[in-house]
């Protein structure tokens, strides 16, 4: 098992999308290019293409989420797939059914694709290892590990505004330790050849060995944001705000919250991104979130096109 990339099939094509780590650059670019071609579908009067007609896509959410689930649902529907939403956290798991039993049952209902979110790192890998070979698994977020479609839509957004990855400086700010989004972004940025990726945060919110992921570590916003082209803010979960990791949300905002003053350290044309949902006044000031450099809403729009692309490519590799 070790050594084989579990998300590629024997022809080196994408079988599952579990993480961006280890994905060949060509596949990442192919997804971004395909997403580009889907962008106009959302602007048409009839927002549908028949690519996945007759396919059953199960949104399998073991962890509550409204937004990510909705964007996957819209993406699948625009591809004409049948979408079944399951909030497993509130049904079978609480009755004691195991993760793999749930998946086996749904497979018996002739699922073609699972979109999985789970609070444990590696849950999507576990499912992918146990499904029939014609079923595709998309990781919609597993624990602290990965959220690959978010990472890809962020790359799509950066490419839309910045064109060339090979000349960029990108800073990721906040709770990297607990963030699957940050891990996916870091892998995507390094895969696409971004020469300088920085992470900024207090030491309690950065993994001990984060520099081994190929990033530069900063603890100060002024130096960390100096001359960057892209600022990515991470969401700070409520449960991390008061305790041994951070004393208070206020103190976090004072040192790491993105305000116009701190943003002034970045390049004048730097863009500001956030995976959402935002905590205004905690990781980002409203005047920045709604300001001219913010591309947070376009990220959401691009997210649908990127998820359409991933689903279409996986289905095409059946």
């Amino acid at each position, binding site marked *: 098992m*070790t050594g084989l990339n579990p998300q590629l099939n024997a022809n080196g094509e994408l079988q599952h999308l579990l993480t961006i780590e280890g994905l060949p650059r060509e596949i990442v670019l192919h997804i971004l290019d395909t997403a580009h071609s889907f962008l106009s579908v959302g602007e048409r009067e009839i927002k549908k293409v028949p690519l996945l007609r007759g396919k059953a896509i199960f949104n399998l959410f073991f962890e509550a989420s409204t937004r990510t689930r909705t964007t996957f649902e819209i993406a699948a529907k625009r591809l004409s797939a049948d979408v079944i939403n399951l909030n497993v956290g509130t049904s079978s798991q609480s009755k004691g059914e*195991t993760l793999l039993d749930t998946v086996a049952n749904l497979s018996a209902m002739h699922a073609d694709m699972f979109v999985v979110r789970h609070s444990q*790192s590696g*849950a999507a890998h576990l499912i992918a290892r146990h499904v029939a070979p014609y079923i595709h698994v998309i990781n919609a977020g597993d*624990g*602290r590990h990965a959220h690959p479609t978010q990472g890809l839509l962020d790359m799509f957004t950066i490419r839309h505004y910045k064109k060339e990855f090979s000349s960029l400086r990108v800073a990721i700010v906040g709770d990297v330790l607990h963030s699957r989004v940050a891990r996916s972004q870091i892998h995507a940025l390094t895969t696409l050849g971004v020469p300088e990726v920085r992470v900024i945060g207090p030491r309690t919110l950065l993994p001990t060995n984060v520099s081994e992921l190929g990033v530069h570590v900063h603890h100060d916003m002024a130096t960390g944001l100096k001359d960057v082209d892209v600022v990515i803010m991470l969401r700070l979960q409520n449960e991390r705000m008061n305790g041994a990791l951070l004393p208070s949300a206020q103190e976090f905002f004072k040192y790491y919250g993105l305000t116009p003053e701190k943003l002034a350290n970045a390049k004048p044309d730097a863009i500001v991104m956030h995976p959402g949902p935002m905590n205004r006044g905690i990781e980002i000031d409203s005047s920045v979130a709604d300001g001219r450099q913010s591309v947070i809403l376009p990220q959401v729009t691009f997210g649908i096109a990127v998820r359409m692309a991933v689903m279409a490519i996986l289905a095409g590799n059946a």
Partner: protein
Amino acid sequence: MTSLACPPDTDPPLDEPGLVEMLKHRARSLNQAHVYPIGALTQGLKGERITEMAELLDAGCVAFSQADVQLSDNQVLMRAMQYASTFGYPVWLRPRDAALARDGVAHDGQVATRLGLAPIPVIAETVALSTILLLVRETGARVHLCRLSTGDGVDMVRQAKSLGINVTCDVSANHVHLSEMDIGYFDSNCHLVPPLRSLRDRDALRRGVQDGTVDAICSDHTPVDEDAKQLPFGESESGATGLELLLALTLKWGNEAKLPLAAVLAKVTSAPAGILGIQAGSIAVGVNADLCVFDPHARWKVEPAKLKSQGKNTPFAGYEMNAKVRFTLVEGHVVYEG
């Protein structure tokens, strides 16, 4: 395997003479191997009140331990060590600071960072180890340290021994061979306690075993139900089956380190017998004919389904082994033929 030291984290824990006698009785009726129970250091392993150690010793216990349950109250730990040392009873402890290891499932290193697994830092071992070593110096207790996993830990024990502090220690056969890298894509068979550490730690453990800092290699036999492993890494139960692989894994290490056979075998025979203070692990006139006859050149492949243990979970599936047991004799009787 002719002699087994059995930790007290049974259900219920081995904290009363009656339970120890039952275990000894069951072992005797199976007539497969000598079982040496390790009694609970505190009642119910709760870390509050010490057990009746003298009674437990009379019932057949050879040492006292908290198994994998951490004793975080240092005052209780010190008193337990003082009491045990009054009568010269050995105390077996696994150095792990419960708070520093809290919620963690993997070594705080590059793999946990990459995979987003909650980390267990090296200091979870070394902080606990320094506490234990200071308490040994203070109380004079005879302490055996179980399952070292870090290079820093081995260095501390090496230094303590050179200062004349009376401790012994072991590592598991898993940790002699594996590192965090073996977790690969969330292989729950590599979810172990203590966690598999970095390659540097593994190499330091090997050096420690070789230079005698680490006295023994143990199986850390922890069979886990298959269902409890078919879960996401962090939710899976920790542990691996170990008894059947101990000899082969030890010899594999010996081959790789190019050490003489007798020195290698001592790590799983006379050295652990010496730590336990039992008459076993050596061949001599007048001692029990507890023998293992093995073919050092019989190659075989580890196939979990063919393991005899109740738990088939092993991180070594597919590994090529070089030694195969042909006969096991306990007190002169053949109890196993392979």
